[in-house]
């Protein structure tokens, strides 16, 4: 029944039981026994070029599939390099499990070579973490890690394994149950609260749906669409929620917040009922909290009880999984419809008139020029080629905001970006993970010239695995978002934001053995992108765009979201 196995093999067995097929990692001294066991194990290990990118790639895998992403690093520097990726996953509620090696238990605490207090350091970077000091505890810890990472509000979990635990031998008997008495997962919303929510929705004259990453995490897009259609309410999806409602759905407005559309922010400001689903009222969405949605009652559905009332008090809180709550809610809404739908129908019709008016007044429209490539032009072309279907992994900065504004996502898990933490260097390794998880899909990595240069080493990984990622660099020669803030709020004193040396894209890609090109004439953009997409392998397209373009609309830090700056040098304060 049971047989003598090493800790390394037992760990691989546990991973197999969790359905892990791919792991992103980087070996080192203390993980040698683990990597030796991998040598003849079917699990695919993807060798990245930096541990931080292993965590980002695991996120790309997780974000694009909903399954737990796995990354692995050695002790000391390997583990500390993972931390940015862990905090990033924490902020965006992404399920990943990180495995780290640790120095042997007898050396722990002795400042041994490559020793770091990984358990202590990652306490604040993870949803939970484990230090496994004996092999007897390993299977339990691994299964608990996957369970914690993937249930409730998802997040990163780290398992730290000392070298002697990898090496120890034991009779392996699979762990079939785990018990975490203090780990509370709220899934079903309160039935009475759900019924009250349905009544509030029909009673509203100006309902507005604010949907976020929670919809995607709980695979509730179908239920969201149903709700949107029963209630016929205008809907915004946050930066984390893009694709939760198809972008070509008539009720979809845009993303809200700091770089949200005029209609999205005015809609939130004027709504009398804000239906907040899987969102956390992030400061980038709400602007000045005291002035946010001042006329609205708030229904807040979230699986994390600590999110309720954290930033904005909820008039009607529902703690539960979005999918389960919405499917119940939709039933009740439909039941109530015959008697209630007509009551405020006129009011809601007028509300739509107002929202459509705002959309027409200031649409999120791309800009074009014949002399230079506008960043918005680039995003519009990517949107055209994608047709709402490609996976787009974005880095952080101006390009991220333009991409979020202008590229349509008609399904969830297509838009992959670092929302909460805003980690530059995220996009390319995330695309790597997403492409491994979705081998047949068109995957774009969009980065700025800043973020791209943070993850250049991964070009090597992409080349060595022949991943057909379309690497687009929106190159404006600046750290654009910082430059924009320096221009607008620091008297245009451009301090340390100039990136005046960028490698020749054709030579850079060529050095790794795949094609690349720089394009700067707007007339060439469409065909250059098409060439990139037609290429069966990876392609690096360096797109030189107008350097001083700013992202608008923009809500200045500390402003109310209806106080948007809509274009250069023409601040427009919109009063109600």
């Amino acid at each position, binding site marked *: *029944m049971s047989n003598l196995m090493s800790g390394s093999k*037992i760990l691989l067995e546990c991973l197999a*039981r*969790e*359905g892990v097929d791919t792991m992103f990692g980087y070996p080192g001294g203390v993980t040698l026994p683990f990597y030796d066991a991998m040598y003849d194990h079917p699990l695919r290990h993807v060798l990245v070029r930096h541990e931080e990118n292993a965590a980002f790639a695991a996120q790309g895998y997780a974000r694009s599939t909903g399954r737990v992403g796995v990354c692995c690093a050695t002790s000391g520097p390997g583990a500390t390099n993972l931390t940015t990726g862990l905090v990033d996953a924490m902020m965006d509620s992404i399920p990943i499990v990180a495995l780290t090696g640790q120095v042997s238990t007898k050396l722990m605490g002795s400042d041994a070579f490559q020793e770091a207090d990984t*358990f*202590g350091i990652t*306490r*604040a970077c993870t*949803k*939970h*973490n484990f*230090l496994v000091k*004996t*092999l*007897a505890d*390993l*299977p*339990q810890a691994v*299964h608990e890690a*996957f*369970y*914690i990472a993937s249930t409730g509000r998802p997040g990163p979990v780290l398992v730290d394994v000392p070298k002697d635990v990898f090496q*120890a*031998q*034991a*009779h*392996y*008997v*699979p*762990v*079939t*149950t*785990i*018990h*975490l*008495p*203090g*780990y*509370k*997962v709220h899934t079903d919303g309160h039935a009475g609260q759900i019924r009250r929510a349905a009544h509030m929705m029909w009673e509203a004259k100006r309902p507005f749906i604010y949907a976020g990453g929670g919809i995607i995490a709980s695979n509730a897009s179908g239920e969201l669409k149903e709700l949107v259609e029963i209630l016929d309410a205008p809907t915004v999806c946050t930066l984390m929620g893009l694709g939760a409602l198809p972008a070509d759905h008539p009720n979809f407005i845009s993303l809200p917040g700091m770089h949200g559309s005029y209609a999205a922010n005015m809609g939130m400001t004027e709504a009398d009922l804000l239906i907040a689903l899987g969102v956390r009222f992030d400061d980038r969405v709400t602007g000045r909290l005291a002035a946010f949605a001042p006329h609205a009652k708030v229904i807040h559905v979230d699986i*994390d*009880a*600590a999110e309720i*009332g*954290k930033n904005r008090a909820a008039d009607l809180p529902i703690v539960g999984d979005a999918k389960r709550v919405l499917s119940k809610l939709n039933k009740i809404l439909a039941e109530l419809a015959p008697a209630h739908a007509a009551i405020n129908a006129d009011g809601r019709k007028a509300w739509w008139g107002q929202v459509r008016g705002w959309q027409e007044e200031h649409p999120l429209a791309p800009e074009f020029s014949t002399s230079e490539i506008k960043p918005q032009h680039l995003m519009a072309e990517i949107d055209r080629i994608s047709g709402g279907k490609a996976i787009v992994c974005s880095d952080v900065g101006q390009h991220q905001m333009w991409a979020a504004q202008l590229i349509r996502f008609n399904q969830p898990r297509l838009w992959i970006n670092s929302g909460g933490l805003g980690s530059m260097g995220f996009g390319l390794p995330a695309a790597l993970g997403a492409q491994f998880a979705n081998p047949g899909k068109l995957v774009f990595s969009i980065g700025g010239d800043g973020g791209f240069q943070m993850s250049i080493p991964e070009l090597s990984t992409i080349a060595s695995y022949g991943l057909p990622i379309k690497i687009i660099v929106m190159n404006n020669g600046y750290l654009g978002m910082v430059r924009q803030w320096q221009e607008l709020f620091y008297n245009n004193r451009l301090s340390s934001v100039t990136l005046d040396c960028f490698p020749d894209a054709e030579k850079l890609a060529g050095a790794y053995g795949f094609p690349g090109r720089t394009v700067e004439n707007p007339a060439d953009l469409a065909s250059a992108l098409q060439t990139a997409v037609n290429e069966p392998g990876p392609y690096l397209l360096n797109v030189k765009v107008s350097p001083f373009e700013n992202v608008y609309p923009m809500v200045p830090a500390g402003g109310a979201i209806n106080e948007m700056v809509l274009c250069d040098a023409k601040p427009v304060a919109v009063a109600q």
Partner: protein
Amino acid sequence: MLQVISLLLENKPGALMRVTGLLGARGYNIESLTVARTTDSALSRMTIVVDVDPPLRKQVIKQMNKLVNVLQASDLTESPSVARELVLMRVRSTMEARASVLKEAEIFGARVIDSSMEGFALEATGDSEKLDEFIDVMRSYGEIEVTRSGTVAVTLEPRKLRLSSPVPTGAPKTTNTPTPANGVINA
């Protein structure tokens, strides 16, 4: 006003660090913290006294309840509860003052646990303000050395303890092959 938080948590390495880390990350200073095993040796009871801005108190409790090792975190500040603290004190006193020291100790309900030519070692319990007074009074007799335990508190109203049940391991589509009950490894 200080917030008194009572936690029931798993008696595991790192559990204390998770709780204090949560307060530390928000810049809160812990006034006192006590922790010890409960009758069930797998669990610990912790009492924390901490200065948290009143609007954030609920949030702190919710965040503590989210910790995997925490079975229950509750705010005892404004609910029926009793709180006590223990003081151990060494007081030096002159031969002439010994009788007065003992009298004073008796008033505060303190017990003598050691007596020597230099003075006494005393033990007192009570609420923190009363112990402050006790310490002040004793200081007037001579040099003192004080160790305080920090507050321990117990709620006076029964609270329902909601615990999660065991769950099966593995990927959702696990096979039905029977496996021995919860795996034990014999190294």
